């Protein structure tokens, strides 16, 4: 019987690579982008005088969805995101004053982005599990061959 080691090796490598590709941007988003946006958001609202510049900066930072938040995918929970983007884009573009109450829209984007990076991390864990399974199967096959 022909050995399946090469298939197991390819399986292991593909899922390992997929896991790394999903993990790196998601972890960067969770640890850097979302943290920075969160800090800007709380700074904007915690000072005695509301800082619209910081809120705008937080919004622009979150305007890019990363690879998993997918602002173009409007599931039932994410439909509010589309309206938020349209409203806030227009407000910043036309130079309308950003109010403290607009913080809810930035929070909504932050939640969406957080859900996206969560999905990325979970996908990475799933890929790593499959990769470990492939690796174990490869080891077993080697043992069986020898």
């Amino acid at each position, binding site marked *: 019987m022909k050995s399946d080691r090469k298939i197991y090796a390819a399986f292991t490598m593909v899922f390992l690579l997929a896991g790394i590709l999903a993990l790196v941007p998601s972890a960067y988003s969770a640890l850097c982008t979302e943290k920075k946006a969160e800090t800007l958001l709380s700074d904007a609202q915690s000072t005695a005088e509301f800082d619209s510049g910081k809120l705008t900066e937080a919004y622009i930072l979150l305007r890019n969805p990363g690879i998993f938040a997918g602002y173009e995918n409007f599931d039932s929970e994410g439909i509010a995101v589309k309206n938020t983007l*349209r409203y806030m*884009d227009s407000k*910043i573009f036309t130079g309308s004053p950003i109010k403290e109450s607009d913080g809810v829209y930035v929070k909504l984007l932050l939640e969406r982005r957080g859900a996206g990076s969560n999905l990325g991390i979970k996908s990475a864990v799933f890929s790593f599990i499959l990769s470990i399974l492939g690796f174990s199967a490869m080891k077993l096959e080697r043992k069986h061959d020898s």
Partner: protein
Amino acid sequence: MTRLSVSICTFLLIISALSCSRMPESVISPSLSIEKSDNGFTGNFTAGLHNENPQRAFEKFRARISILDEKNSIIMEIPVNFETVLPFETAVVQKKFSIKNEKCGEFLRLIHRKESELTETNSSVNGFLDSRKVLLKDVQTHTVAITKLLESRRK
């Protein structure tokens, strides 16, 4: 071999850059209202142009809208000119124009109305146009990342 790899990479980069933004291919809800005025008829064309890209805005959007009659010959062309169309925004195209008495029937047929409905001055009729008879042509624009655009507008 190296030259071939470079060509393939360039081709893939061009394809990915082009596929980044979707251009509008047609107008949304084209409608026409015709009003009888003292010296003939006045038409008012309205339609929407939607930017469905979540991340890219259209800048200097130029195009032409052609309205076709039943025989598919152009009866009117409307230039479209927008400085910026933001993501998910629907820009409204509106054009008011005068219609000669002899041409009025042609426009009324497009919205399935009769001239007898426009008997008194200031009376008007309106209706949606068949979207197959309203063509969006010669679209010229360049797309820009929304983050870049917003960053430039930030005070």
